[in-house]
């Protein structure tokens, strides 16, 4: 037992000490941040402070009332205003001419081609006909930003409705009350029961779970595989095998590398949690109402337990499979072909989980819950939607435990012979002989 522990310790310490581990630990959170940011970027990068020229051709000069709430908006937590409006009052027939005369001032660039922050972001044209038809014109450099435009549109819609109400003789208090904002609070119901989650958060939770499981399983497996191949080129294996069973050697490697990976995941998780707290969900990007809900929802304890159980099962299954692949090969190049079946199983679980993300009760999802390679992905994803019946959960865990035992048995037999075999790559017939050997 103390020898097994010494092997685990060595694998863990030697891995954690490497530069690759340090770089991976630092780069991981940066990558996550980038991935998390991506949807926002795709929504259009929100501009910072904007200067908008307002060509007000309405007879009642309503623009200052329309833009009242917008002009009070602050940028982020600072004191800086988000919008600066420069209003130009013009006669109705002059609107287009004035607009065109201002155009050259929009989006001026310096010699390096960067936008001059002092130049105009855009021009808003307010006319009586436009107000009546509910159709205002905005020309600007940021029209590609869905975030910017939908924000402006939403604010103007409310303001125009309010303006119309005032025009109908209603008091401003009434208009204010009538146009008050309405938010929809969502709650997910499964099989007649409240699950206590919002619809969006359930989706994101499943999505994030699948990715975390994949990131935790795949590179770790490949690391174990490469470590075995590397060790095969070294005769220290003979020293080790003459004092510990090959099985202990394999188990020590799997658990040691696994512990290092868990540490890395833990650091990533902790840094994500800390980063989430400090950013306070503020996000300078899009208005909170528009923002995609990317903040991690509170994760229920039962889901954490189920995920950890399946993570352990999946890890043991794939890590031992990868160890066996490493034992069969002499070079990293050789592993490319041999690892294909293992990689296939891993991808089946990964893609299967995505395919059934919205259909946790589908037949496909149920079948995959009972296959040892796919269940570690499918069951936690399904659980994030709704808890499985206890019999189904226990059945699935039972099948997975059997699968893990089978894989450990198989891998240990291949490993035992494979690690001491050099020379030509073994054929499937050779491997069959290894497995059957006593």
């Amino acid at each position, binding site marked *: 037992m*103390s*020898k097994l522990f*010494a092997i685990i310790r*060595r694998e863990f*310490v*030697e891995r954690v000490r*490497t530069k690759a581990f340090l770089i991976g630990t630092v780069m991981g959170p940066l990558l996550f941040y980038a991935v998390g940011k991506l949807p926002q970027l795709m929504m259009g990068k929100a501009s910072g402070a904007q200067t908008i020229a307002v060509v007000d051709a309405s007879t009642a000069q309503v623009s200052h009332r329309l833009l009242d709430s917008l002009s009070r908006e602050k940028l982020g937590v600072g004191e800086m205003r988000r919008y600066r409006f420069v209003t130009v009052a013009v006669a109705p027939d002059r609107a287009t001419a004035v607009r065109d005369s201002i155009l050259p001032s929009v989006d001026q660039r310096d010699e390096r081609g960067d936008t001059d922050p002092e130049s105009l972001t855009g021009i808003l044209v307010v006319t009586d006909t436009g107000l009546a038809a509910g159709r205002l014109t905005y020309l600007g450099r940021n029209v590609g930003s869905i975030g910017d435009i939908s924000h402006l549109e939403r604010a103007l819609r409310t303001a125009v409705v309010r303006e119309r109400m005032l025009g109908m003789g209603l008091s401003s208090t009434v208009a204010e009350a009538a146009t008050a904002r309405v938010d929809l609070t969502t709650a997910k119901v499964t099989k007649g029961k409240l699950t206590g989650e919002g619809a969006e958060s359930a989706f994101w939770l499943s999505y994030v779970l699948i990715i975390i499981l994949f990131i935790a399983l795949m590179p770790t497996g490949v690391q174990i595989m490469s470590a075995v191949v590397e060790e095969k*080129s*070294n*005769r*220290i294996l*003979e*020293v*080790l*095998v*003459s*004092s*510990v*069973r090959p099985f202990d050697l394999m188990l020590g490697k799997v658990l040691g590398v696994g512990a290092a990976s868990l540490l890395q995941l833990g650091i990533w998780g902790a840094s994500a949690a800390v980063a989430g707290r400090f950013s306070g969900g503020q996000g300078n990007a899009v208005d909170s109402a528009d923002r995609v809900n990317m903040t991690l929802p509170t994760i229920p304890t039962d889901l954490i337990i189920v995920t950890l159980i399946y993570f352990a099962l999946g890890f043991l299954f794939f890590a031992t499979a990868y160890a066996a692949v490493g034992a069969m090969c002499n070079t990293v190049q050789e592993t490319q072909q041999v690892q294909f079946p293992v990689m296939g199983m891993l991808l089946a679980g990964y893609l299967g989980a995505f395919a059934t993300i919205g259909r946790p009760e589908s037949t496909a999802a149920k079948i995959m819950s009972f296959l040892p390679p796919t269940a570690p992905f499918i069951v936690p994803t399904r659980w994030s939607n709704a808890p499985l019946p206890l019999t189904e959960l226990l059945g699935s865990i039972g099948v997975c435990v059997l699968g893990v035992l089978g894989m450990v048995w198989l891998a240990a037999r291949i490993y035992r*012979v494979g690690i*001491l*075999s*050099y*020379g*030509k790559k*073994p054929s499937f017939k*050779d491997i069959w*002989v*290894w497995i059957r*050997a006593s």
Partner: protein
Amino acid sequence: MNVIEVDRITKRFSGHVAVESLSLSVPQGGIFGLLGPNGAGKSTTIRMILDILIPDEGKVTLFGLPHGARTLSAKIGFLPEERGLYPRMLVLDSLIFLGQMRGLTRVDARHRSLWWLQKVGLSDWAKHKVQDLSKGMQQKVQLVGALLHEPDLLVLDEPFGALDPVNAQVLMDIVLELSRNGKTIVFSTHQMEQAESLCDRVVIINRGKKVVDGTLAEIKAAAGTRNVALTFTRDRQAADPILRDRSLVSRVDDSGMAVELQLAPGAEADRLLEALVKAGCGLSRFELQTPSLRAIFIQKVGPEAATAPAREEVAHV
């Protein structure tokens, strides 16, 4: 009691027989040489003795006990042929790990490692990576790793193979010291000079079979004193017809003025001396010798040694 008792072990690798019905006994104490040309089956035999490979037939008994080498690993030290360390690990960490593998506690292993590093003059390298060390230093570290736990039996596979004479001597001195302290040492080599200077007993194997077995003295005695060393002072060429006479001389190792030869079966040394004197050769030396281990090795293994089968190690079971 014999420390190692090997009883008719056979090992086959996909088609070819690496070791065939080999038996040998290693008594307690002393240095035992397992000799043979490359590919003779030395490493395979060692692996079977150490439980790394399981023999297809036959069995190995260690210390007279019914356990394999793995169970008895605390009593056995093993130095594999080169590359027996993790290259990126620190020297001290490597040694501690190897000690733990043989049943020492971490603290104890650390203590002993530092003592040994001091003894072999590598204290300054304790915190360096193994790969930063020269080959000779690495081999010293490996040897220390093999004997940290003070094993009763030390098995060394080609321990001095890639070493320069100075480093080889340092390692040999350690091995000799252990031997004097009553430890049993088994080492394999194809370098007969080393074996001759170190071993009490040797087994020579060729193509998986044993061809010679016994103490060095026994083997030499059995080979007889059929060797003659000559040194000429003048008229060397006059000896040529005599040296070519197959009724007198069966084999010549000719170095010009110095010649070693083996007498033909039935030929007498005094007839050779008489013939040389008659031919008018000047001689400063005419000496009857026991053959060197190298000579015996070449005689027993013969030209076959040059055509050793290629290593094929897939499908070890």
